[in-house]
């Protein structure tokens, strides 16, 4: 029956011939594990196509829903974590194997006559793979994706003469936005994979025409092996191991949640995927007018050197020992890539000292926004003060120079006018000595120098120019906080007012959340939410600690937990008690934190309490369990088969 069917098909379409053509090959020098890389890349590309197409069921390429739809796929869809993990890690694995494949071809001299065209197509495949690895991470339009697009589009803009054209064509608009996501999506899921499939077929046809180049030693070529099954068996073993490794990586090292895009967020350090780190680091060497050399010149030259390799190296010699120049060039290139990647990985741009210069860029931008404020040229202490104003969290409540929260009074020149240095220091150290019912926290842990810097900054706002200050003024010792007299509280209803807002629906970035927490929440809740900061006049007597959090707010299901805490962060709350000195501030309503920042803080608060914001809701099997199940099934089936064969 089967052979009849096969015959029927073969009479109309050369199926058996096609199979035989793809499998039957005599390999000079026999099979080797050195030849597995090409097959591995092919199979990995197949995995990428399958897992990529599957993700289209859930992912939408839009700026507002992209990240949420991806997270829905990762957390709500059974095995979504695995499919996305395989795609994410598969991309990295594919690039590693493409690199190994091309290195093997180079060392074996397999690009030489008659395989020049195979090499040319292969370099095309390398470029397409890198382009796929570049366009993919942009798609969710999260913190990582946005900044990667920004870099890509800006780099295109540095091309001489046609820069603006290239930039606008790539971004689909004059600024980054929905059209940019659509273009990257179009490239990533349609154009690039389509061309790559065509190129892979061309590559395979070219490879079949001449077969493998085999060992360079003529004597070793006498022995021959078969592509199927001898070589494919070796390929199969490695592919199986890679696949199991990808499942393991997806289970134990899931792709990071970089957080919803927030261009106001200045703590995020954008870095490319590891496979572009070497390029990213190299780019740093080119400034100003030399920038196009880095962004366009070097990639172009390297690509051309790769492409035309078989034409400027025409010697038929394949033995690496007799090609010293080629080998030295190879090792220099590899050393450059690895060294630059390691430096790039290790670099902390913008975090030069005390982790504040990132903030300083932000404040510089802010001062630029406020139309060339003279404070931009302020003295060092004013600048320090401005950074501290951000990092100590003052900006969470007070608007200054047009930026900041609205919980406390805006620090306009009119308000600050006439206030002495000593008055301001006391206000920061011990606000209740001026106004017993103030909700401003006492910044008792800041150093004298820091407080003086902040005061310098405040005074510079009044004067519109840097202040020249004398010796650092000693702050009066922090007085024990007097219990304020019972003033009737204006707000009678305690607890948060209002429902959870948009932040509660989005999965935040825990690391960014920790930074924001440090800046805005620590003054009252203490480091890691552990302190019991005194709150006189409240029933509890302290600000409620967040770690561990009130058991009525806790829930081990992340979404419910977030829904419980989000209203407090959004709308603030007034603690129970006759006259609580400190209130929870309404970070959302006052817009002192964006919804994205609140999502990040919530992810951090959940982690402090041992709950992952991004937990899979319907995992069927917990990821590590699934991985070990796969390992056991593989071991049993393959082991069982070997034992059964051994007995026969």
């Amino acid at each position, binding site marked *: 029956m089967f*052979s009849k069917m096969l015959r029927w098909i073969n009479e109309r379409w050369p199926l058996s011939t096609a199979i035989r053509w793809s499998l039957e090959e005599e390999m000079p020098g026999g099979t080797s594990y050195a030849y597995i890389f090409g097959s591995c890349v092919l199979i990995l590309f197949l995995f990428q196509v399958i897992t990529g197409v599957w993700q289209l069921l859930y992912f939408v390429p839009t700026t507002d829903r992209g990240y949420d739809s991806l997270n829905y796929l990762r957390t709500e869809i059974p095995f979504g974590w*695995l*499919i996305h993990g395989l795609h994410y890690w598969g991309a990295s694995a594919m690039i590693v194997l493409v690199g190994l494949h091309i290195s093997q071809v180079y060392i074996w001299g397999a690009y030489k006559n008659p395989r020049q065209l195979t090499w040319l197509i292969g370099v095309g495949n390398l470029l397409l793979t890198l382009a796929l690895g570049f366009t993919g991470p942009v798609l969710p339009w999260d913190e990582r994706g946005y900044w990667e697009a920004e870099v890509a589009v800006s780099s295109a803009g540095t091309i001489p003469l046609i820069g603006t054209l290239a930039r606008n064509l790539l971004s689909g608009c004059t600024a980054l936005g929905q059209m940019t996501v659509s273009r990257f999506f179009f490239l990533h899921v349609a154009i690039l994979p389509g061309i790559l499939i065509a190129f892979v077929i061309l590559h395979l046809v070219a490879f*079949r025409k001449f077969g493998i180049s085999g060992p360079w030693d003529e004597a070793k070529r006498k022995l021959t092996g078969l592509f199927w099954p001898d070589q494919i*068996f070796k390929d199969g073993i490695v*592919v199986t191991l890679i696949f199991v490794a990808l499942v393991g990586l997806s289970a134990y090292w899931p792709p990071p949640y970089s957080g919803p895009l927030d261009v106001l967020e200045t703590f995020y350090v954008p870095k490319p995927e590891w496979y572009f780190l070497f390029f990213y680091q190299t780019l740093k060497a080119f400034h100003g007018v030399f920038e196009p050399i880095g962004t366009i010149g070097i990639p172009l030259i390297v690509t051309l050197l790769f492409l035309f390799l078989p034409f400027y190296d025409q010697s038929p010699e394949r033995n690496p020992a007799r090609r010293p120049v080629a080998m030295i060039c190879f090792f220099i290139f590899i050393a450059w890539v690895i060294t630059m990647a390691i430096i790039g990985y290790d670099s902390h741009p913008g975090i030069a000292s005390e982790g504040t210069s990132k903030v300083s860029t932000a404040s510089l931008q802010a001062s630029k926004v406020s139309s060339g404020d003279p404070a931009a040229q302020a003295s060092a202490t004013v600048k320090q003060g401005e950074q501290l104003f951000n990092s100590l969290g003052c900006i969470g409540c007070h608007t200054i120079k047009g930026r900041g929260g609205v919980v406390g009074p805006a620090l306009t020149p009119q308000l600050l006018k006439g206030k002495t240095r000593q008055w301001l220091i006391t206000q920061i150290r011990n606000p209740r000595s001026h106004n017993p019912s103030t909700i401003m926290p006492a910044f008792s842990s800041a150093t004298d120098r820091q407080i003086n810097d902040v005061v310098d900054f405040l005074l510079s706002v009044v004067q519109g120019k840097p202040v020249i200050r004398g010796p650092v003024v000693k702050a009066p010792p922090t007085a024990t906080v007097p219990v304020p007299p019972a003033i009737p509280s204006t707000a009678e209803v305690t607890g948060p007012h209002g429902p959870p807002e948009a932040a509660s629906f989005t999965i935040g970035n825990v690391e960014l959340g920790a930074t924001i927490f440090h800046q805005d929440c620590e003054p009252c809740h203490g480091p890691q939410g552990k302190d019991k900061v005194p709150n006189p006049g409240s029933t509890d007597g302290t600000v409620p600690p967040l770690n561990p959090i009130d058991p009525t707010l806790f829930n081990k299901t992340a979404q419910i937990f977030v829904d419980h805490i989000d209203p407090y962060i959004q709308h603030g709350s007034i603690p129970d008690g006759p006259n609580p000195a400190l209130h929870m501030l309404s970070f959302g309503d006052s817009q002192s934190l964006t919804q994205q920042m609140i999502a990040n803080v919530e992810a951090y608060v959940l982690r402090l309490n041992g709950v992952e914001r991004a937990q899979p809701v319907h995992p069927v099997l917990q990821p590590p369990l699934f991985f070990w199940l796969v390992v056991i*099934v593989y071991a049993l089936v393959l082991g069982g088969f070997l034992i059964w064969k051994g007995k026969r």
Partner: protein
Amino acid sequence: MVDNQNWNHTCAVAEAPLSGGGVPALQPETPRRRFLKLITNLMVALVAAVLAVPLIGGMIGSSFRLKKLRWAEIGDISSLSLEEPTNMKFAYKTEDAYIRETVIHDVWVIKHSPSEVTVFSPICPHLGCHYAWHPETQEFACPCHGSIYSITGKVLGGPAPRPLDTLPFKLEKEVLFVEWETFKVGTPQKTRT
């Protein structure tokens, strides 16, 4: 060149009879090769199986999920007067996969005692308009087609085919929670949409 001969050989194979048997193999099929073929196929099958489980499982698992009903918090009813319909607005989170939106809905609440209330959907069962309470006549009246209901929801006049729709609720310390549902309009039966 060795390689070119190889190519020619493959071409020769292509011209051979297509029925499978009778083609001279490149090298003899040894027991070792038979074993290698078997175990390679087995490895491919395993990878395919492990890949198929999540691919198919993910598609099936998410297709049979029931839409979640959530308790929506309406508010504190301790200050409501007894037996007097009150319109209470609340923010309701709708959820459709990853698209979540908060919409404002309202319900009519009649408090009988601190632990007993009636909650009416604000939608007229006739054709879906929003009706209102008229304290002077002690009636609910719909402005669209003049349906009139008593405080218990009974139809007193107009084209309404059924009494006002009640909604499931629960009370926690006088805080009212409602399951927001909508029903088909224009039919004598109350059926969920």
